[in-house]
């Protein structure tokens, strides 16, 4: 038998698609699927949340007072500030006629200025925020913003979306980088919903402010003193990734609203109770 050797050919067993093209396509598809998943979940949650009565919410989350929150008994100054904030919160809430929540206020020891609306009607401020506030009007805007989240039940929406998305990811059994890519798409979609909620809460806060003080002064100055939401570098990199709209955009939207409703943007600022 004669033997006629031939070399193996780089033939049908290897696809000709460029790997980077394949990577870009797959990342886009999986991220889009994650984003679609969040949109579907968010729609379902938005439909479901108004059906949950606030009374039931208050009972469900009665024990949800975070352990990190607690007045520091030694810090008399902070206790005074917290008590003053509590009063401002109650006064603002009077302008929200059908408020179903028994509001509570807590202070968390944290230098980053921030505020949270927790399920069940708890508002938590960081000590860093209380230190940075220079007038009662500014504080009222922050509290009004959190009341806006309660009004729109945003605290439940965010919770519901996060939970449902985590469940879907766990159900898919997606692990490692593939899960990360899907989660990335999901988070990008989620950020869109987050920012819509923040804008709505801003508008609600401005309405309460106008009703309480007769003007909406103090808000724009306050934004100027706050650090950028997610760090200045990241904000400069991409505004889309931020959970909150950029400060300038928020201020512009608020000024436009004040102009439209005829609320004065200047007026006497009340000092914070010391």
């Amino acid at each position, binding site marked *: 038998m004669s033997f006629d050797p031939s070399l193996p050919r780089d033939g049908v067993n290897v696809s000709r698609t460029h*790997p980077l093209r394949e990577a870009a396509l797959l990342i886009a598809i*999986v991220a889009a699927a994650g984003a679609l998943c969040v949109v579907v979940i968010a729609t379902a949650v938005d439909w479901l949340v108004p059906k949950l009565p606030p009374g039931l919410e208050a009972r469900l989350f009665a024990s949800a007072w975070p352990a990190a929150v607690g007045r520091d008994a030694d810090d008399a100054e902070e206790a005074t500030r917290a008590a003053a904030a509590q009063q401002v919160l109650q006064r603002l809430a009077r302008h929200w006629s059908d408020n179903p929540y028994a509001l509570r206020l807590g202070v968390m020891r944290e230098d980053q200025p921030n505020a949270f609306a927790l399920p069940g009607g708890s508002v938590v401020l960081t000590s860093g925020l209380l230190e940075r506030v220079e007038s009662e009007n500014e504080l009222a805007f922050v509290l009004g913003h959190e009341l806006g989240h309660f009004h729109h039940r945003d605290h439940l929406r965010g919770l519901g979306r996060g939970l449902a998305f985590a469940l879907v990811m766990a159900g898919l059994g997606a692990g490692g980088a593939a899960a990360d890519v899907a989660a990335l798409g999901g988070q990008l979609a989620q950020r869109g919903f987050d920012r819509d909620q923040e804008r709505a809460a801003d508008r609600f806060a401005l309405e309460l402010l106008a009703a309480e003080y007769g003007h909406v002064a103090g808000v724009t100055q306050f934004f100027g003193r706050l650090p950028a939401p997610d760090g200045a570098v990241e904000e400069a990199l991409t505004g889309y990734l931020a959970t909150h709209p950029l400060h300038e955009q928020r201020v512009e939207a608020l000024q436009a609203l004040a102009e439209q409703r005829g609320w004065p943007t200047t007026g006497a600022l009340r000092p914070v109770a010391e």
Partner: protein
Amino acid sequence: MGDPIAIGAFLAFLLGTYVVGSWIEHRHYRTIRQREQRWRRLPVVTFRQVPAGWRVEDSGLVTGNVVISVDYFKRVLAGLRALVGGPVKSYELLLDRARREALLRLKQEAMQGGFHAVINVRLETSRLANARGGEGVAGVEVLAFGTGLKLSQPPA
């Protein structure tokens, strides 16, 4: 993975492992083609019987074995494929390399053993699981084995 820094790090790592991985792959293919050219006169065939006319003086087992690992880029692509479905193209080059390298090592062993041909050649493949308990693939093993023959008159 939500903030831009994490996303950038992920993409940079992905691109980096692609560049390094394809460079290594390119180099590997170059030596594969060189050796295939150099050793092409040694018959390596899948016949189960000794071809008619060959006078066998001696025979023995010859094997060629290779383990090739998956780079991060390929693994991520395969992971994404696992969600979407379809051909896992990123592993095709990897397995092609592994098969051809295993056959080349089989030829090398045959020549070192003084064999003139290898018949009844078979390929076996097995997956090597990660040390982390089967999650992902650390590498793929391809084993080529066959019967080496010493002939009184080597094929031309």
